[in-house]
């Protein structure tokens, strides 16, 4: 009896053995099964360990600036469309902006009155500034010099973001730390204070930024991130980028003495950075100045065709080009014939002028001048800089500033300060390069107005016009619509309703209440 039971148990044990072993072996690894890293995102523990991490984070910050400017073509909606000189045949949202109806509820307006994308830049820079020292500790390849230059760029980009935002919204919350995980809502900070801070940041950054990268600059030794200078030229913030933006910042505040000083740094040192003035042909070629990354992009964000960076949107071309330049019946916006003639009112202008018979000398700035819609085709980088109209795929860079801009800004500053001779010299530096006669007060009228007119012609479609109008009317009230806005701080944009809803410390701009 007993043995039977025993043998039954033994056979029973045998039968149990297989499933039992399997269970033990496989469940043992269950904790390992659960501790797996994501393959699609990088967790905190795998970031800030190496040189590649700082590079990726810094490039990411640049990418975010580009995204902020390109989103819904914001850079041009702010800078060119709002000036109201263009006309839109079809797009109601553009019309609303042109008529200063900025609270109209179109998706594009809701997007560009929201400053979130700029704060992404700021947060990204803040995190970089807080975390990059860890890499300095962990990765010996990350040299002190590399670190210093990286920090300078992050600080500059952050300050630039604040400057850009102040021009649009006025007071903005000043957030200079990442507050990671302990976010708190912040009220808007006085714009003067924000700009003063940004100016200091940019100056500090400028001190550490090189003139060029991987080019033997004493402030950036060796090959930056092991890449040659051709990889970096025109893409990163440099010393002159900082001074150019500083000049803009000072001018925006009406601080023309500083604007003159900062811009002088650029006009004195551009050769050191291998910058130069560009020809009209280069400016307007499909594969010219705006195509690719160029050293002469004093501060710009390229969509490099060769890097598969081109896109359908985020380029001026999306707004301005149409038949016959690209396959599109009606442009989103165009400049009427009358406007063109009144702006380009001097003979010999290589950008646009009419011959004695009243036909355009060139199609550099405008194509199809005599058609129903003259096409503003100054920037037309289609695909790899070709003239193929079939595919509306663009690769032009967003150029925030270039040497011509800084030169004219300097002219403006000097004119405002009463240094006429210097101002004329700067103005003529551009005029003569565009085929115009040197400035002559009898022919061209008031100097300051001429400088702004020259800016309008030279920088058309580069996101400057609206700010130029504001600065000009502050010094010399002449456009009634702009003057009326300025009187009530209406040059600002409304703060998006979505922002006000999520942060109760924020207030709407007085004019837009």
């Amino acid at each position, binding site marked *: 009896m007993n043995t039977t039971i025993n043998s039954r148990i033994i056979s*029973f044990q045998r039968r149990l053995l297989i499933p039992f072993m399997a269970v033990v072996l496989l469940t043992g690894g269950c904790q390992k099964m659960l501790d797996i890293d*994501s393959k699609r995102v990088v967790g905190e523990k795998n970031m800030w360990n190496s040189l590649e991490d700082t590079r990726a984070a810094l490039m*990411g910050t640049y990418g975010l600036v580009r995204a902020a400017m390109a989103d819904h073509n914001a850079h041009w909606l702010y800078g060119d469309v709002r000036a109201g000189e263009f*006309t839109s045949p079809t797009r109601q949202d553009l019309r*609303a902006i042109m008529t200063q109806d900025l609270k109209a509820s179109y998706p594009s307006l809701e997007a560009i009155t929201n400053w979130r994308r700029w704060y992404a830049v700021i947060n990204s820079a803040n995190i970089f500034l807080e975390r990059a020292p860890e890499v300095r500790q962990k990765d010996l390849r990350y040299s002190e010099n590399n670190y210093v230059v990286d920090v300078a760029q992050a600080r500059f980009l952050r300050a630039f973001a604040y400057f850009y935002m102040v021009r649009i919204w006025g007071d903005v919350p000043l957030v200079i730390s*990442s507050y990671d995980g302990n976010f708190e809502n912040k009220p808007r900070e006085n714009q003067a204070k924000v700009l003063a801070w940004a100016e200091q940041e940019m100056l500090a950054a400028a001190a550490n930024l090189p003139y060029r990268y991987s080019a033997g600059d004493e402030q950036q030794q060796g090959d930056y991130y092991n890449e040659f200078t051709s990889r970096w030229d025109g893409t990163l913030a440099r010393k002159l980028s900082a001074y150019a933006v500083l000049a803009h910042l000072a001018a925006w505040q009406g601080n023309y003495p500083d604007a003159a000083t900062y811009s002088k740094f650029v006009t004195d040192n551009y050769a050191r950075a291998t910058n130069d003035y560009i020809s009209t042909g280069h400016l307007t070629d499909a594969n010219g100045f705006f195509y690719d990354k160029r050293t002469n992009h004093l501060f710009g964000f390229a969509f490099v065709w060769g890097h598969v960076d081109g896109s359908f949107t985020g380029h001026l071309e999306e707004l301005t080009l149409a038949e016959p330049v690209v396959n599109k019946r009606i442009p989103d916006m165009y400049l009427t014939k009358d406007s063109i003639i009144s702006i380009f009112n001097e003979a010999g202008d290589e950008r646009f002028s009419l011959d004695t018979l009243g036909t355009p000398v060139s199609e550099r700035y405008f194509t199809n001048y005599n058609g129903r819609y003259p096409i503003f085709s100054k920037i037309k980088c289609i695909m790899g800089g070709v003239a193929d109209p079939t595919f509306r795929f663009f690769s032009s860079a967003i150029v925030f500033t270039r040497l011509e801009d800084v030169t004219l800004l300097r002219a403006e500053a000097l004119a405002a300060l009463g240094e006429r001779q210097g101002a004329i010299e700067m103005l003529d530096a551009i005029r003569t390069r565009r085929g115009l006669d040197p400035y002559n007060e009898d022919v061209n009228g008031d100097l300051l107005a001429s400088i702004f007119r020259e800016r309008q012609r030279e920088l058309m479609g580069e996101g400057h016009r609206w700010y130029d109008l504001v600065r000009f009317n502050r010094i010399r009230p002449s456009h009634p619509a702009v003057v009326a806005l300025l009187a009530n701080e209406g040059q600002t944009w409304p703060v998006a309703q979505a922002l006000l*809803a999520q942060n109760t410390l924020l207030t709407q701009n007085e004019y837009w209440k």
Partner: protein
Amino acid sequence: MRKTSMLTGFILLMCLSCPALLLASAGVATSLQQDSLDTDTSAVKPIALHGRDSVFTDLNSRSIKLVPDDMARFPAVSLQQYVKDQAPGLFVQENSGEPGTLQAMYLRGIPMPILSHRDSYQAQPLIVLDGIPLIGEHPFAFDIQQYQFDRIGTATNLLSNINMNNIESVQVLKDIASTAIYGPLAANGVIAITTKQPGSARKISFNSYVGMAQRPTVTTINGDYENAFRRQFYDRYTAIGRYSPDDSYPLYLSDSLNASYYGPSNWSDSYYQHGLLYSADADIAGGGDRANFRFAVGHLRNQGVADETGLKRYSALFNINMKPVKWLLFSAMINGNRVQRNRNRSLRDRFATMSYIPDLASPLAPNNAIYSQYINQFDNSFDDNATNIVEGHAKLVFDFDRLKITSRLAVDYNEGARDLFYPRTLMEENSFASNYYGYNQRLIYDNHVSYDARLDDKHDIFLQAGSILQWDAFKYSHAYAYKGINDFIKINLLESDPNNGNYLNPTAFPKELVYKFLDYTNQNLVSFYGRGTYRFDDRYTVSLLLRSDGSSNAQPTSRWLFTPTLSVGWNIKNDLLDDASAFSTLDFRASAGRLGRLNVFDNFSQGPTYSTMVGYYGNVVTPGYNGFGVLTRPYDFGWTGYGIPWAYTDQLNIGLDMGLADERIRINLDWYTKYDRNQLLGIPSYAEFGYRQSYETGMEVNNTGVELAVSIDAVRKGNGRFAWTPSLNLSYNANKLTALPGGLDEIIINDRLFRVGERIDRFWVWQNEGIYLTDADVPVQNGSARQFNGIRLRAGDPRWVDVNGDGAINNDDRVLTGNIFPKIVGGFMNQFTYGNWSLDAQLYFNIGRDILNAEMANRFDFINREGITEINSVKEITFWEKRGDYSQYPLYNPWSNVIPYRKEQDLFLENGSFVKLRTLSLGYDLTELLGKRTKLDRMFVYGTGHNLFTLTPYTGRDPELIDFLGYDTGYGLPIPRTYTLGVRVNF
């Protein structure tokens, strides 16, 4: 006794290998649900559906017969279509009649606001085929899509893999007593499907139908009609035919001599057609007592009625059971399906796939001659969508009488490939090629042990403990390219010579216009459970299930979740009413418990992360900056912090099952309430830190409802030859937001307002009260005229109700009204039989739901949609179809900056209730007629009609063609009226 100690030792050892099991085994094990996960039959015979302790088994389907053989008559493609009107508590959103498209299912309401496909994916019930929990698509692919109408890839309904002819039973499991055993995957309920099992006798059957889907009749319009429609606005609001000097009237409407637009509008001849429906299935089963098998093959073809859509399916299923020794059972199943789909050719979907919108100035012309020229361009293109779906398992059951040990390996694998080419002629000289390949794979290793301790005639105990290891992997690779060198090379060729400097670079398409994507994610799940059931004298049953689940997508600090479920049953009839003859059955049951809810994205398990997202509107995928990969916080995705706990669902179910008059009347009544707690919600916040939103935990949604199933043998067959069985299933559901993260009272997300205490599927609209005819009509308050979002209202603008009376119309004046998901869903079925004849009529209805007619809003808002290169401005060929009633809308000034024809107003909100005659089927059983001359077991022929009519107050098209936002976008292809003839033969 020794055996039990062995068992204890066994469990203890299991516990040692993983401490979490201690939690599970600490309690007595269970749910009385005897599901297919643990159907351990000792003999090789069809798996017993009604296990010994199946008090709770398919109670819900007792009166509503989910009879697979009947369902198989429906010319359906997907499981969703089969079950749509069949089970109380289930709501199926079939928003397109295109065969094989995705259809969402919701069991017992929606556990979270459904704002995107992502949400919809996460609200789907679990489908279990022979104990294999099926894996679906992962929504991660939407991350790279600017336009999210369809997921990239084949977008084929993965539940097209159920061939109803192979199915023995379909159970819709809703109460936690029956779902808890499936763990966190089952948080949204379960549909358990069991395949037919072989027996010891040889059986052969053949089932087939052939039929057609009827071409719908539509009213077409042409340019003349559209021009007249628009002229009304120009006549009213413009002096010279232009609202402003910059206006441009669309060219295609300007020239009344242009026959392509002003000529006959007969495009529908090329667009709509009759569709062929066809299915043939055969199977054979055989073997003996120790080993048997069943093998089935099938082919199905289902053509849509519009745009040459269609689907083909090839399926095979193989079951085998073997019993080499008395105490060991081996069984295996493999189910393979290949689904090929012809997709619609709508412009919107094509442009969305290409992420490129060409000039939209000239829409497709309504003239058939011109339209068919366009259609012919597709001859040189291809759009191949093939999906292979395979699932299988192999199981060993060690059977020692009362003790059973089961070890099982199961795999569900599906892969989809979409190869696409559009020639240059189709789009402004730009060709496009795209290739997608993706797979979803689930591997399960599950072991459990059960012990049946029947003490005596009265006391009955059943114990079970088990562990499940589950590995999920999702992957896709996707590439597309524009502008190939010619229309003959249709694929994105790469340089194949490794010694060539151009190795792996594209050769036929410019490399600057080639985009490549890859994504891969894993999710692992480890579960331990134990359950125990005690039954006393067939009167009282109590069951407790304890489980502990660990997920790799949960944060390391809260990997594991312990959840209990308790169920009790009380057989009142046996206990108290033994003599009451009125009741033949009276059961009471109640269950309460908790189940975890999984994070779908592994991002959440990591805390703060870095990703490569530096895109922007219209270009969400930006590869980097200056040719370098980037890493930034996922600002567009949102902030994820630490300390995210498991989300879980708490459910309470009380049910009553009655049989009256000798089971002549069968009633099941269920009341439930469930709270889905601790859910993550993206709260728009921290914009000053760059984030679009912050994922915060703490959203809680309540769903409460009642489900009723009644079935009556009104006339029993008895002596007469006539029988009539009407049955009704009805479910009422109400959802409510009970808490938001951080104690918020309300939140606006994606232009929808969510307020605690309100339903989560409300429309948030302005109330429309007509029109301001003159500027003077606009009310003036505090010296200023009424404004809309800061814009002064004028003549021709809508008279929106100023709800809060502050003299301005803004978001504060929008009201929460209506509901997207129906309050009542049900089916009413009548089965008549007379002799060998049978007639089935099935009505399907939704009551208490609303529809926002977005298509109509778009038509009236033509000013904002004309001449703009934007996805919402795309005009399909169906633009030339008259849908709805234009006359019920006022003529506003469409140029106004207040956008008078904006969708978010009750002007476009309509009652979307409906009743459909979904099935009418007449059958005749030939078995008797053929008699003993043949070896036939049964032969049945039938003819059916489906979707025969719809009654609805809705003025648009079919009220079923609505998306999860409650919008009728006009994009759903019509659900066809179908007629089929079929035969079912068993030898």
